[in-house]
Each structure stands twice: as structure tokens, then as C-alpha cells.
């Protein structure tokens, strides 16, 4: 995974609350292979009408916001299903940071596992940032080391779980870390079997 230190990019306002994962990527696209990229499905039904034509009032279709890598939105972003495809759609579209007052728990951990920063700002700061973008600011700078966001004349701080911050700054993947504990895990499993013999499923797995 690529480390995330700071990002200076076009920022797109999405002034909606509760943008759920069914909006981020409608279920009907989830049969596709990731190899082709999920970027074109991002917020599909808010971007395209029934005929597939772009809707001009959709923020991501604003010609000035093309190439956006930062999304600024309202509370409870990414609520709903655990589909990591919602994060794939954002990442494949080019988004590397979403700024909001709160995130769905599963979405946020999926985001970090894909190098996407879920930056938490206060409701008040979120509205201030949405306002400067509405008033014409095009870009924002997100500094993960300093936990700071700049846009136009606005400077504000954000939070992210310290564990996630370290992971993002270093581009770490959990699997590599976990595999350094292989023998500790094996010892735990052995001791646990003595302590909780009832845990093991009582039927043997079928050979299907």
C-alpha cells in the first residue's frame, strides 16, 4: 500500500448526510471484476440518470471538480453495508481522502485498509469547508502528519484514530504484521482449545 503523508488536490463538496454504501456503489455493479476498475460506478445513481446521461446538478459532474482526490461531505458517510466495493469505487475514481464529521465504522476500517484517509472534522468546520468550496475554492491540502487541512484562507484540524494514522503514514498492511506473530497465534489456539473445548464445531467439515 502507498504511504499517505499529505495531499494537495482538487476537493469536491458533497453536501449530503448519511451517504450510504448503496449510494457509493449500487449492488448491481458488484458482480464486476475489480480488474476493470470500479471508478465509473462511484455514486452512480446520483451521477447518471436512467438513460446513463450525466446529471448536471451532481457535484462530481462539475467540470471544475474533475480529477478530485478529496471529497468533503456531511455526517455518517459510508453507513450501511460492509461492502469494501464502496471504498474501491472511491479509490478507483481517484479519491484518496474523505472529510466528514463522522463515518460508518466498517466503511472507515475498509478505507484505511485501502490507503484512503477518513478525516474527521467537527460539524462546524465541515460546514466552513463546504462553504469555502461552494464559494469557489477548488483545492485543499490535507496533511496527515500535522492533522491539518487548508483550503483558501481556512485552516482547520482533523482527527483520525492514531493506529490508523500510523498505518496510513507508513502504508502498512495488517497481514505482514500479523504473520510476524505466527507462533504466538499457534500457542494461543492450542491453549484456547483446552480452555474452551466446546468452541470447535461438532461435525467434521464435509468434503464437498
Amino acid at each position, binding site marked *: 500500500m502507498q504511504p499517505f503523508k499529505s495531499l494537495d488536490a482538487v476537493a469536491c463538496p458533497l453536501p449530503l*448526510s*448519511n451517504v*450510504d454504501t*448503496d*449510494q457509493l456503489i*449500487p*449492488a*448491481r455493479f*458488484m*458482480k464486476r471484476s*475489480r480488474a476493470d476498475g470500479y471508478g465509473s460506478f462511484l455514486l452512480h*445513481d446520483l451521477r447518471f440518470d*436512467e438513460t446513463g446521461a450525466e446529471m448536471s446538478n451532481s457535484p462530481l459532474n462539475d467540470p471544475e471538480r474533475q480529477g478530485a482526490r478529496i471529497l468533503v461531505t*456531511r*455526517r*455518517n458517510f459510508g*453507513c*450501511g*453495508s*460492509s*461492502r*469494501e*466495493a464502496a*471504498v474501491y469505487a472511491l479509490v478507483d475514481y481517484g479519491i484518496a481522502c474523505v472529510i466528514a464529521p*463522522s*463515518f*460508518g*465504522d*466498517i466503511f472507515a*476500517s*475498509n478505507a484505511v*485498509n*485501502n490507503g484512503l484517509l477518513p478525516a474527521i472534522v467537527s460539524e462546524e468546520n465541515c460546514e466552513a469547508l463546504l462553504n469555502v468550496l461552494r464559494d469557489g475554492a477548488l483545492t485543499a491540502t490535507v496533511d496527515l502528519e500535522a492533522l491539518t487541512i487548508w483550503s483558501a484562507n481556512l485552516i482547520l484540524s482533523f482527527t483520525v*484514530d*492514531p*493506529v490508523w494514522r*500510523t498505518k496510513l503514514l507508513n502504508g502498512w498492511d*495488517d*497481514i505482514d*504484521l*500479523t*504473520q510476524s*506473530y505466527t507462533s*504466538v*497465534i499457534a500457542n*494461543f*489456539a492450542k491453549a484456547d482449545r483446552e*480452555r*474452551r*473445548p*466446546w*468452541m*470447535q*464445531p*461438532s*461435525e467434521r*467439515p*464435509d*468434503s*464437498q
Partner: protein
Amino acid sequence: MYTPNRKHVTLFDKVFDAHVIVEREDGQCLLWIDRHFLHEGSFHAFNKLKERSAEVARPDLTFGIEDHYVPTRTRDLGRIDPAIRGMIEQLRGNSQRHGVRRFGLDDPAQGIVHVVGPEQGLTLPGLTIVCGDSHTATHGAFGAIAFGIGASEVAHVLMTQTLWQKKPKRMRISVDGELTPGVSAKDLALSTIARIGTGGAVGHAIEYAGSTIRSLSMEGRLTLCNLSIEAGGRFGMIAPDETTIEYLRNRPFAPKGEAFERGAQYWLALASDADAMFDHEITLNAAEIAPVVTWGITPEDASPITARVPDPAQIPDPARAAQVRDALDYMDIKPGQSLTDIRIDRVFIGSCTNSRIEDIRAAAAILVGRKAKVPGLVSPGSMLVKKQAEDEGLDRIIREAGLEWVDPGCSMCVGMNGDLVPPGERCASTTNRNFRGRQGPGSRTHLMSPAMVAAAAITGHLTDMRLLMREPVPARD
């Protein structure tokens, strides 16, 4: 670490602590995972294994279940959309390659993962259970830590049987008193979400407690825990008690004989200590809860059926007023209109929320001897629920009312298998999400209990089921 003698400990902490393999200074814990359920969506995770030429660490603790994409009107894969068939075939291929036990379409125990796990006794108290599905908290009804995970985490569990987690905060939702006739666990769950909001439990593990919860059946508890994520909670739990133990005895995968008794002793000791501390406490009075319906596009947009649709002009908070305006616009309903004046086009009874035998019985009790004014689908949660309902004659009641009785799967809750609500249509549904387009592009969803959906089917509009209540349908011998 596992410290059996600590005091003031919550149910969540007792189960969590028993699974900590490593605790880092920053609070990250490497947790042992006891059960991992997979469905067709697991292909992303298996692709990650392939990239690393990795194997499944513990196939004996991993179970594949065909539910998200399965057809409900045929079991013949030759007759369905090849893209959908491909999803099922990928799960079959991956399960076979890695020696994972699979509940496939040809299995007499197939069904929705959150129905099958408990039914088979794979779900037990005191376990950690994960699945790439946000409704995994359902299994918390047994006093397990059960939670939805994304594809990267699915791959991590497949490869290591562990996950890194930081302890969430703890929230207790206490409900006391008796639910009035016709009021179900679904009404209790929707009322709670309306009270705390869809983000109300973000960052928290919920424990449901109180006399009302203790008197719920396992089916009711499963419905309640299922909807935890709709309040933002990744975890929802209920302390194991005699109801839990009796449900599990003799289930196929549950421990047997002495191992079961030893388990039962352990499980009953998991309840939160009397003086356990929670970060948040919410209390509800069961007697005040009425049958509830949603009118908007998030589950918090819920009101008692006796109420009117809210008027954004009367809402002081401008952000909330804007949301309600947007919701009513999408739903095409008027501010201030009676909820019971909302006409519907079809109904759906099913999903991991409400497809268990009690749910089918509750719907049949309203439908018996009546005709539905709108079409609808009834999809029992598993082949075992289907068989039991048929043994009780409930399928006949449902068919005679004019509704379709089909096979189990996630079906019209999410529409992945092609069971869709057509654009612009309004569906009364026992499912869990009324998000924009959830049941199909342009669809409009009203969430409610199975009995409320049955009542809406009979009248063609949202209806207080209490007006149609009768004696329960007698079981047919």
C-alpha cells in the same frame, strides 16, 4: 488478556478479553476468530489469497453459504443470468479448493447466513464471529461478538484466523416492561433507531438488556441485534440465558453431551456484572412502543403507524429539515399526511432481519382467510424454516392470500439475485434498509414488521395491524 477474576466487567469485555492474542501499547488487539462465514461476495478476498499464494488457515472454522445471489424461484442454475450464476460458481470453486464446508443450493439446510448460523448451532455464546456482511451482529443475540467486515479483513481472517481490533466503547440499551399485543422486536429496533439516530451507536458495541429483552424469543433477539448496524453499531449483544441454552441444545454443530454442559456453564457466566460500567446508557419503556413504519430513506426516519408524516417546515434544525424534505421528495409523500394513507404497490417478507419461523407465523396470522390487494414475495430464511412453515400449513395461507411463496435467499432486500422492486414502486418490506434504490433503482421502501407488511398487503396501504389481529393460526398436525 484473559483475566477471569476482573470485576465490573461487561458481557462485551468478557468475550473480547478471552480472544486477545496480543495487545499492543496503542490499544490494537490481535483477536482470535472462532467462526468465519463466507458468501458469494467473498471473491475479492479469495483473489487476495491467490495473489499471495496463501491457504485458508482454518477451513474447519470457515463456512461458505450461498445466499446473496441465489435465485428464489428456481434452484436450477442453468436457468438464471450467467453473471449471477458466475458469483455462485466462484464461491463453490473457492470453497472446494480450500476445503471449506459449504451450504449450497442443494443443501437441505441452505438459507441466509444469519439464519443458518444459529439454526445449525454454528453460532454459540462467547464466540467471535465474522462475515463480510454488516448484519453479522445478528449472531450477537447469543452473546457472541459478531461483526461485519470488509474484503481486506475477510482475506486477513482467511489467512490467519485473526483480526486486529481496538476495543469500541460500550453502550447499553435497556428496555423494561411488556410489549403490547402486536408489537414485535422489529418495532422495538426501529423505535430505538428513531430515538438515537442512524449514527447513534457509531464507535460502540451495544448490549441490549432489561426485562423486555429477556422475555424475547431467540427469533426476536436475532431481529433486534440484526438492526444494530442501522443505528451505527457494528456489534449488538444479549447476555446468554436459559432461552439461549435451550435453543442450542441438539443443534447439529453445537457441542454435545458433557462438552455442551461445560459450554452452558461458561456461557451463563458471561452476563455483564451487576456493577459493569457503560460509556452510554439508553432506556426505553416497552409499553410506549407501537407498531412502527419508516417513511423516509434512512431507518431513523421511523414513526408509529398512528402518526403523521413529519412536516419539514415544523422541524427547527435546518439540517434535519433539509434531510426530511429530501426524503419525502424521493418517497413521493406529503408532509403531514397520515401514514395510513400511503398506498403501496407490493410487499416483501424475508431477509436476515425477519424471515424466521415466528416471522412467517406472524404474517400468516394476519393473512389467513384474506386476500392481498397487491402482489408480493415471501422468502423464508432457510430451507428448514421453509419446511417447518409448510408442515404448519403456512405456505398455503400465504398462497391463498395471493402472495408468492419462494425459496430462501437475500432476495428482494438487496436485489442482487434479480428480485427487484420496479422503479417508482412502493414496497412494504420486512427488511433492514430503506436506502434510496436499495431494492432496485428508483424503488421506495417502507420498513416494518412481518405482521405490518401482511396488513399492508391486505388493505393496499400502510395499516395498523392491530386492527386486523386475530387469534394465532393453530399449527396443523
